C-alpha cells in the first residue's frame, strides 16, 4: 500500500506561486526566534548559507561538519560556475528559459513549482555573493563575465576561474563564521551525525559523534536541517571527496524519511581516466572546458597512433556529428553515453582504450589569431599565434590544465587530453515538499541531499545555484510555516527517553562493528561495492544486471557484518571506525538504488536501461507509466514501500528531449 505524499505546491500561475506563497507564509516574531533552536548538519553551500542566514534572522543555530573546518565541505571543489537568469549578455535569457532548460535537461522528471522558484531566486544569489566579496571573473569594463555550460544556448554561467565552488563556499563560510563570532551559531567541527531523534513523530534533535574523542553527544533542535550532500561515493570511485557519505541521509531514511529517485546518478563526461587499481578517487575536468575544447576519437577502430599523429580527416568529432545544434555542449548524460558508446565499440584511446580526446589545438589557434589581430600583428608565425593562444587558454583554464598535467604527467597544451565519464553527482536524495521538509515533520533536506530540482539529469552549474538557493533564499522563508506552530515547544532536555534510546542504539552499533574482528578492511568492502554498482547500476543498466547486483550486494552485506576488521578503539580519533559505519550505510543504499533502477522500466536522463532506447540509442522515456517521483519508504531490512508522487506539467509541453 502506498502512502500519498503531499508536495504542497502552492496554487496559482507558475510565475506567481513563490511570490505569493512567500508573502503569506506564517512568520515567527523576533523574540520567539531567539528561543527556537535549529540544527544544521553539513556546511557546504546549502548548510553554510542556511546556518548563516537563519542565525542572521535571530534563530539559535548549531552547525555540524565532519571535516576539521566548515570551509572544507566538498562544495569547495566545484569548478565551472553558477547559473543565474540575469540576461547580462543580452542573449535572450529569462527566468522562464532557465526554468525550461532545467526541466528539459532533467528529462521531464522534476517538479515545475520547485524549478521555477529556483530560476526566480537565481539572480539574487549572484547579488548576495558579490556583496560578500566573492571575486567573480569580470570583463575589462568592470562588469561580471559569463560563459556557457551544457544543455543551454545562452551564456548565464558566472564563474571565478576554475574555482567557483571554492569562492562561493568561502563567501558562505565567512557569513557562517561571522555568526559564530557573534555567538548566534555554535559550530561543531569533526562531528558526524549518527542518528535523528524523533519524538511524537517530529524531528527533535540528533545524536552526533565527536570524531576526535569518540564521545556520543545528544543535541536538541526544534528542527533539523540535513545539508549533507550526495551519495556518489556509493560507487567508490567518483569525483566526490573521500569523506562524502550518505550516513546522515540514510539514518533519516531509516527513521521514516522517504528516499526519492535513488537511481538518478549523474555520470560526468569529462574526468581524468582511471590509471590503475590503486586509484582512490577521480578528478573532474570542468564542463566549462567543453566551451572551447572539441571531443573526438579516431575513425579507425583500435587505432594505436598518438592523438597528434592522427590527421584531421581520420578524426570523428562524434558529438558534433550526432548533435549539430548543441555539439560539444550537449548535457552531461548524453555526452557520457556517447563516450561510452564509442569506447565500447572499440574506438577508445590511450593505454586503457577507455578514454576519448578533449582537444584544445583549435581553441589555441583561434584565440591566438584573435590576439594577433588585437595587437595588429598580421604577419605572425604559427608559433607566435600558438604562444598567444596558449596564454589565453591559460588565463581561462590554467588551474585545470595544471591539475591534468600533475595527475597524468602529460602536457595538455601540447597533447589532446584523455577523458572518460565518472560518477559526479546524485540527483536523487531525501524526498522533500515545496518547503524542503521531508515527510518527517521538522526534518528538512537542502542542496544535493534532497531530490527536488534536477529530475533525472542535472545541468552544469546548477548544483551551486540550488545549494545556495535552498540555503539563502528558500529555507529562511519556508521554515516559518513549521516553526510558527512550534513557538510553544520548550527546549526538550536531552535526558528524554527518545534521546537515551537513540544514543544507546548508536552505541550498540559501534560496539557491534568493533567486535566483529574479521579479516577485511572497510576500504576493501567499499571497493567491492563500488565495482558492483559501477558495472551493474552505472551508465547502463539492465533487468538481469540489476537483479544480479541486488543478490551480490546482499551477500556483500552479510560478509561485511561477519568479516570486517576495524583496528583502534571507540574512544579515540578513529577514521577506520568512521569509514566502516559509512560503508555499511552505502551497502544498504546500493541495494535501494538497484531496486529503484529495476522498478523504473524506462530510460530517462542519467538512468539508462538498455532495454529502453530509441533506434539511435537515445533514452526512451515512458511518460504514461513512469512520470512520477519514486519515493521509497523504509520498512525493514531489504524491504521498501514505493510511494509514487505523480509529476504534473502545466507549463511545459512534454517532448522527447532533442539536442540535435
Amino acid at each position, binding site marked *: 500500500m502506498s502512502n500519498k505524499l503531499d508536495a504542497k505546491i502552492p496554487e496559482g500561475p507558475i510565475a506567481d506561486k513563490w511570490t505569493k506563497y512567500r508573502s503569506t507564509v506564517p512568520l515567527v516574531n523576533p523574540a520567539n526566534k531567539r528561543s527556537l533552536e535549529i540544527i544544521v548538519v553539513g556546511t557546504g553551500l546549502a548548510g553554510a548559507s542556511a546556518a548563516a542566514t537563519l542565525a542572521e534572522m535571530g534563530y539559535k543555530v548549531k552547525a555540524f561538519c565532519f571535516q576539521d573546518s566548515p570551509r572544507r565541505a566538498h562544495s569547495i*571543489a566545484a569548478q565551472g560556475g553558477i547559473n543565474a537568469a540575469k540576461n547580462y549578455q543580452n542573449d535572450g535569457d529569462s527566468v522562464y528559459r532557465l526554468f525550461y532548460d532545467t526541466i528539459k535537461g532533467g528529462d521531464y522528471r522534476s517538479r515545475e513549482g520547485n524549478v521555477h522558484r529556483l530560476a526566480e531566486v537565481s539572480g539574487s544569489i549572484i547579488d548576495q555573493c558579490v556583496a560578500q566579496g566573492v571575486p567573480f571573473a*569580470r570583463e575589462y569594463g568592470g562588469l561580471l563575465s559569463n560563459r556557457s555550460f551544457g544543455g543551454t544556448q545562452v551564456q548565464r554561467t558566472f564563474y571565478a576561474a576554475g574555482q567557483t565552488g*571554492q569562492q562561493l563556499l568561502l563567501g558562505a563560510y565567512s557569513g557562517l563564521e561571522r555568526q559564530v563570532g557573534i555567538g548566534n551559531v555554535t559550530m561543531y567541527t569533526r562531528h558526524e551525525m549518527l542518528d535523528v531523534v524523533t519524538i511524537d513523530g517530529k524531528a527533535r534533535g540528533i545524536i552526533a559523534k565527536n570524531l576526535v574523542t569518540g564521545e556520543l553527544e545528544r543535541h536538541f533542535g526544534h528542527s533539523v536541517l540535513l545539508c549533507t550532500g550526495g551519495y556518489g561515493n556509493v560507487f567508490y570511485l567518483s569525483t566526490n571527496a573521500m569523506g562524502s557519505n550518505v550516513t546522515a541521509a540514510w539514518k533519516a531514511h531509516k527513521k521514516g524519511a522517504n528516499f526519492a529517485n535513488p537511481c538518478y546518478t549523474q555520470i560526468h563526461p569529462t574526468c581524468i581516466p582511471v590509471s590503475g587499481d590503486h586509484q582512490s578517487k577521480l578528478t573532474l575536468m570542468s564542463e566549462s572546458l567543453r566551451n572551447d575544447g572539441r571531443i573526438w576519437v579516431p575513425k579507425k577502430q583500435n587505432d594505436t597512433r598518438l592523438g597528434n599523429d592522427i590527421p584531421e580527416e581520420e578524426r570523428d568529432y562524434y558529438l558534433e556529428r550526432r548533435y549539430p545544434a548543441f555539439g560539444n555542449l550537449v548535457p552531461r548524460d548524453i555526452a557520457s553515453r556517447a563516450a561510452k558508446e564509442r569506447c565500447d565499440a572499440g574506438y577508445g584511446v590511450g593505454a586503457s582504450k577507455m578514454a576519448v580526446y578533449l582537444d584544445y589545438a583549435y581553441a589555441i589557434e583561434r584565440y591566438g589569431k584573435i590576439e594577433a589581430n588585437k595587437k595588429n600583428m598580421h604577419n605572425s608565425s604559427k608559433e607566435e599565434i600558438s604562444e598567444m593562444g596558449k596564454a589565453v587558454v591559460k588565463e581561462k583554464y590554467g588551474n585545470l590544465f595544471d591539475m591534468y598535467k600533475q595527475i597524468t604527467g602529460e602536457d595538455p597544451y601540447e597533447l589532446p587530453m584523455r577523458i572518460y565519464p565518472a560518477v559526479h553527482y546524485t540527483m536523487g536524495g531525501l524526498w522533500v515538499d515545496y518547503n524542503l521538509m521531508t515527510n518527517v515533520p521538522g526534518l528538512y533536506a537542502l542542496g544535493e541531499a534532497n531530490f527536488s530540482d534536477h529530475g533525472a539529469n542535472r545541468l552544469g552549474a546548477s548544483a551551486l545555484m540550488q545549494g545556495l538557493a535552498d540555503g539563502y533564499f528558500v529555507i529562511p522563508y519556508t521554515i516559518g510555516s513549521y516553526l510558527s506552530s512550534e513557538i510553544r515547544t520548550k527546549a526538550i532536555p536531552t535526558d528524554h527517553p527518545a534521546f537515551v534510546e537513540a544514543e544507546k542504539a548508536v552505541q550498540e552499533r559501534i560496539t557491534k562493528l568493533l567486535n566483529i574482528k574479521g579479516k577485511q578492511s572497510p576500504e576493501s568492502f567499499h571497493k567491492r561495492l563500488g565495482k558492483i554498482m559501477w558495472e551493474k547500476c552505472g551508465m547502463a543498466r539492465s533487468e538481469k544486471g540489476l537483479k544480479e547486483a541486488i543478490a551480490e550486494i546482499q551477500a556483500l552485506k552479510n560478509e561485511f557484518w561477519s568479516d570486517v576488521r576495524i*583496528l583502534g578503539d571507540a574512544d579515540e580519533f578513529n*577514521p*577506520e571506525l568512521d569509514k566502516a559505519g559509512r560503508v555499511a550505510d552505502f551497502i544498504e543504499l546500493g541495494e535501494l538504488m538497484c531496486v529503484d533502477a529495476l522498478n523504473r522500466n524506462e530510460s530517462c536522463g542519467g538512468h539508462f536501461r538498455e532495454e529502453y532506447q530509441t533506434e539511435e540509442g537515445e533514452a526512451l522515456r515512458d511518460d504514461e507509466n513512469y512520470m512520477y517521483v519514486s519515493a521509497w519508504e523504509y520498512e525493514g531490512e531489504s524491504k521498501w514501500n514505493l510511494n509514487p508522487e505523480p509529476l504534473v506539467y502545466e507549463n511545459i509541453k512534454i517532448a522527447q528531449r532533442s539536442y540535435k
Partner: protein
Amino acid sequence: MEGNMNLTLKVWRQKNKKVNGKLETYKVAGISEDMSFLEMFDVLNERLVSEGTEPISFDHDCREGICGMCSMYINGQPHGPLQGVTTCQLHMRSFKDGDTIVVEPWRAVAFPVIKDLVVDRSSFDRIIASGGFVSVNTGNAQDGNSLPIPKDDADKAFMAAACIGCGACVSACKNASAMLFVSAKVSQLSLLPQGQPERQDRAMKMVAQMDAEGFGTCTNTGACAAECPKEISLENIARLNREYLGASLGSTN
C-alpha cells in the same frame, strides 16, 4: 603490485596529544609512479590493517588540491618537494626508487597534534570569525552589476582569495606565523569596494586573534610564500602591514 618503486618511509606516530610521538620506519614496495602520495599511504595502510597494526591517521578529503585538508610535512617541506602542489596532488613520479621519505605533521603551537599526522587547525576558523568577512546579511544586496570593479582589482582579490587554509605557511615558518593566511583574507577584502567599510577594523581584529591563538610573529623570511601550494604572494603581507599600520594610526579606540 602495480609498480616497481621500493621506498622507506619514516612516519610520525602519536596516539594523541597527551603522549609523546616518534618516527616509525616502514618499507613499502611495488609503488607505481602514477599513484598520488596519499594513494601510496592507502597502500601502506591496507597492509598495516592486514598485519593487525593500526593504520596511520592523516587528514585528507577532496584529493584534488582545493579543500586544504591534507597536511603532510614531507622531507622537511610542507606538501613535499613540488612548488604549487598540495600533498594530495603530489605523485610518486616526483620520487625515485630507493628513496627514504620522512613524513611529519604540521608543527606549530597553534596546531596541536590530534593523532599521527592529524592536527587541529580550528585556530584558523577563529581568526576568520574575528573579522574575515563583509558584514552583509542575506537579502541586503544590490544588483551584482551595479558596482563595476576594475578587472585588475578583481583579479588581484581572486589571487588572494585562492588561499585554501591548509596551514602550510605556518608549518613552513620558523616562527609558526600565520601572517600569509591572515594577509590573504585581509587583502582580498581590502582590494574590493565591498570590503571598505570594515577595512580597518578587520585588520586590527584578525591580527589580534592571530596573536591570541599563539602564532608567532613575521620576520619576513618568505618561507610561507615559497611553500604555499596556491602560491599566495608575499605582497599580501606587505599589504596587511600597511592596513594594520593605517588602522592603528587611524584608530579611534
